């Protein structure tokens, strides 16, 4: 599938600030075998005094922009053309959940793909007893790690209600889980906490999801939003798989990956700190436009 992606993020501050600095993770990257980026452009308004593009620890494109003089609003625009390829279905060669530990221990590296980064608590996700108990109840003895991931993702999709009013970006997973409500971020965080709780390394993926307009209606411009889903490590043989608990499916052709990390703090689209007091407002508009529109899949839920 070929997509044109357009994203606009605008935010403004009540009080203007000098030396504002933002860390932007919006540029998609090539992922061998899955994703190829044909073009990508990130523009910022007002024009930044500094801009530096680099890769972060996890291999994500990280763009630093900084303004020296005081500014009170910023607009970031991404334009990208990305090809997404189908990943062939493979046999389930993952070890049983209870034996995954041995596979993990055999990986003696600290590279970004190593499962060790994705096990215990990370800045925004810490396994909590309710999620661990939930996952444990779903995983029957002898179940493979891959089956375990599917079982937890599927069950969460069944038990959680999509509700864009129930949570905010700051809501901790335990609280969203107690409500059994939330958006893609909550689904994803809860699933990560649950999987880590039973020893399955798992991380956070930010990106885009192709959405489908209601039957008979045109696609609304800017109606989409960024999406989040789960990445889990199911043994040396298979490695990482990506599952979207919000839509109960593997992240396939309808998905475009932007960044991988342990949790939202590693992949946040914009990180920046204000020196001045006062609040700020932000607005986000996303378009994911398929260029070769022949496949028709079931409609999927986006985030808020």
């Amino acid at each position, binding site marked *: 599938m070929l997509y044109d992606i357009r994203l606009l993020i605008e935010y403004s501050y009540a009080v203007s600030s000098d030396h504002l600095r933002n860390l932007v993770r919006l540029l998609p990257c090539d992922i061998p075998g899955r994703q190829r980026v044909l073009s990508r452009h990130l523009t910022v308004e007002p024009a930044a005094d500094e801009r530096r593009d680099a890769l972060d620890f996890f291999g994500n494109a990280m763009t630093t922009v*900084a303004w020296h003089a005081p500014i009170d609003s910023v607009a970031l625009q991404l334009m990208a053309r990305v090809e997404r390829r189908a990943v062939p279905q493979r046999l389930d060669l993952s070890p049983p959940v209870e034996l995954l530990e041995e596979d993990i221990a055999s990986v003696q*590296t600290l590279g970004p793909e190593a499962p060790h980064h994705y096990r215990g608590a990370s800045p925004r996700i810490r396994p909590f007893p309710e999620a661990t108990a939930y996952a444990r109840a779903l995983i029957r003895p002898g179940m493979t790690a891959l089956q375990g991931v599917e079982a937890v993702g599927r069950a969460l999709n069944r038990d959680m209600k999509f509700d864009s009013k129930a949570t905010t970006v700051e809501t901790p997973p335990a609280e969203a889980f107690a409500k059994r409500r939330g958006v893609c971020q909550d689904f994803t965080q809860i699933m990560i906490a649950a999987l880590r709780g039973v020893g399955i390394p798992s991380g956070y993926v930010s990106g885009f999801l192709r959405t489908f307009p209601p039957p008979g209606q045109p696609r609304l411009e800017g109606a989409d939003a960024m999406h989040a889903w789960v990445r889990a490590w199911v043994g040396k043989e298979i490695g990482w798989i990506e599952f979207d608990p919000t839509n109960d499916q593997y992240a396939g052709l309808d998905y475009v990956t932007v960044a991988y990390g342990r949790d939202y703090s590693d992949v946040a689209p914009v990180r920046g*700190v204000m020196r001045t007091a006062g609040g700020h407002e932000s607005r986000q508009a996303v378009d994911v436009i398929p260029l070769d529109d022949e496949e028709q899949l079931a409609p999927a839920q986006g985030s808020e």
Partner: protein
Amino acid sequence: MTEAARKKPVQDIFAEYRLTPGVADELFDAQGHMRPVWRRFVDRFSRLTQEEIATRFERGNLYLRDAGVFYRQYSNDPLQEREWPLSHIPVILHEEEWAHICAGLSQRADLLEAVMADLYGPGDLVRDGHLPAELIAGSQQWLRPMVGVTPRGGHYLHFLAFEIGRSPDGSWFVLGDRTQAPSGAGFALENRMATGRIFPERFPRAHIHRLAGFFGAFRTAMEHLARGSAGRDRYAAILTPGPQNDTYYEHTYIARYLGMMLLEGEDLLVENGEAMVRTIQGPIPVGLLWRRIDAAFADPLELDSSSRIGTPGLMEAVRQGNLALVNALGSGILEMRAMMAFFPRISELLTGQPLILPNIATWWCGGESQRAYVRRNADRMMIGSAYAVDLPFDIGSTTALGGNFLNSEKRSIAEWIEAEGTSLVGQEAVSLSTTPAWVDAEDGGRVEPRPMTVRIFAARTPSGWHFMKGGYARIGKSGDAMALAMQRGGSVADVWVVSDKPVPQDTLAPPETGDFRRSTTGILPARSADNLYWLGRYVERTEDAIRLIRAYNLRLAQTDNPNDARLRRLRDFMDNYGYDLSRPIPPALIDRIEAARGCAAKVRDRFSTDGWAALNDLLKTTRRMTSTAQPGDDAARAMSVLVRKITGFSGLVHENMYRFSGWRFLSLGRALERADSLAALLAEFADPDAPQGSLDMAVEVADSVITHQRRYRVETSRNTVVDLLALDADNPRAILFQIQRIRQLADDLPHSRVNGRLAPISRAILPIEAEFCVRDPVEIDTARLIALRSELAHISDLVGAAYLR
């Protein structure tokens, strides 16, 4: 204590010094013979009478109290400061033994650097199985943004501390490595100053190695690293988390001692990969930060995003090689307790040599055989978090000691180890040596053995690791020599490294020849200027309030009628500022003094110890008066006491503070505040509607009664009062006087002229000055005074915009 007891030499009391079997002692060796290095000290000390000892110890305490040395717990209440717990008898080590220790620690420092370089570089130790990947990846101290970053100057570690202890067999071992932001070096200096007061004689003084050489060498190394090879003028500074931190006092002390800027995260900005300090002259580049904040908080953009004390972009300045951090971000990983289990083998692996000084025996419970070993030997171990970075005797959440949990835990230790093995370590429950400590001082005092550890400091210099010839000893509060007895509540002692011969007497004064040293006294960070400016304003505001409260209570005493018109007007006037005059000491007064003290606390490195003591004294006195003062005469007298105290502070500042930018901002704050309060006073009490007697009161509040009598020799009238308090260029309590002062101070600030033209502040003040020079009292009516107040507020805003952010 009886007279006889007071005169008794303490010799007898040393005789009661009882050693613990199976525990080494600093004073006596294993055979019970006094170690030679202590002999001369003990000879002298035991000839003193108890009275002499008490006097000497009190001299040391006095020094510390006067110097403002205190210890504080993490808390928001600055008054929760504890007296510095000095154990007056030093720990004495012979220079040969000390050299042996340093040889071991030098080897260890190189090992730590090598492990650090590998963990943030090639990762061979993990790949080859010498360090478990999950331990490193699971630690919050391993900072991913640092992976692949080469530190400026090539080294990660520059300043280290080692906590060491002595085993029962007399040999030394390492309890913990401090690599993140080691504290205590400044306290070691203060301890030395205090013991210098206690034992001033030529012996022992001439035989004790000095500490200054260490600091001098380290400062030179830091300045060198800051400057770098590019030849750019970059400064070295100290980065502190701020006054909330429990060792903030030490940060201010070291900054003053070394003449370095003390910065907080918000003092810095990053521009084009270069860290800069915001100063009143504009941004100035910084090439090195001796950081006392934990690495994760240093940059909210790339590290912990919840940090409020960091600088966005600091990581970028590090990455681009423009900024050195002492120590590099991420060095906290070396403090992780589990590392101790792997260092001995890594040492042999990397250097072919075993560790000269062993570290406390440690087993990581991630491996099956280690787990089994710890389970079998749990009764002689401390078991706790593998990821903890505190010292073995600072107990974390769940710890088991000698086979028992220290907190309530339902599981058995065996179950616990089995379930959470990968996150646990077992450490040998070591015994420490004991050292003489003076105990029961209230009962005359005696010497008893107490367990101790010693913290030793190392600094990297171009010629290798340089060790402080001395240290910082922690003394346990009970005789129990188990390391765990060292947890909070003990005391600290000076460490003497003693030579058989007199030693060279170096100081921190620059050598006659040699490197040129830039002075940083001329650089004033904008935040320091801001705090000094507001300190000036708050102090003036407080003094003004004290005088008004006094005027009120004097009249209350005279009239005994709270409904007197003047009293009512004064009450309403003060009510606007939050002062409740129905109370003899209005609570708002304490708020104002606390605000002043809060500003002063943030600039303690630029501030005399006496000035700080004077402010504290003012606050304490006012608080004490709150419970005792009665309305009327008593309160008026109390206010007179406070007036004298606060003018004492002003005098200290005026007489002692170097006339540099910092002093100018403090003075500017005072001048603006005084001009404003005089305008407010006149607008209220020289108004034609003011009740009778108000004019006299205004003159009294403005402390100008005598001048007024001498100059006018007539009845007080509105004209005489306005003439004296608004238009007199020679009366420090006149608006014109203060306006002129503001203009002079503003002229001396940086950038006061731009391309030959006056800067906005001077342009705003000049017309006011001209006007007040030529006007008659009748022309300065209430409306003019009120307008003046908003003009002054505008000038204050201009000062803020130009210099204070």
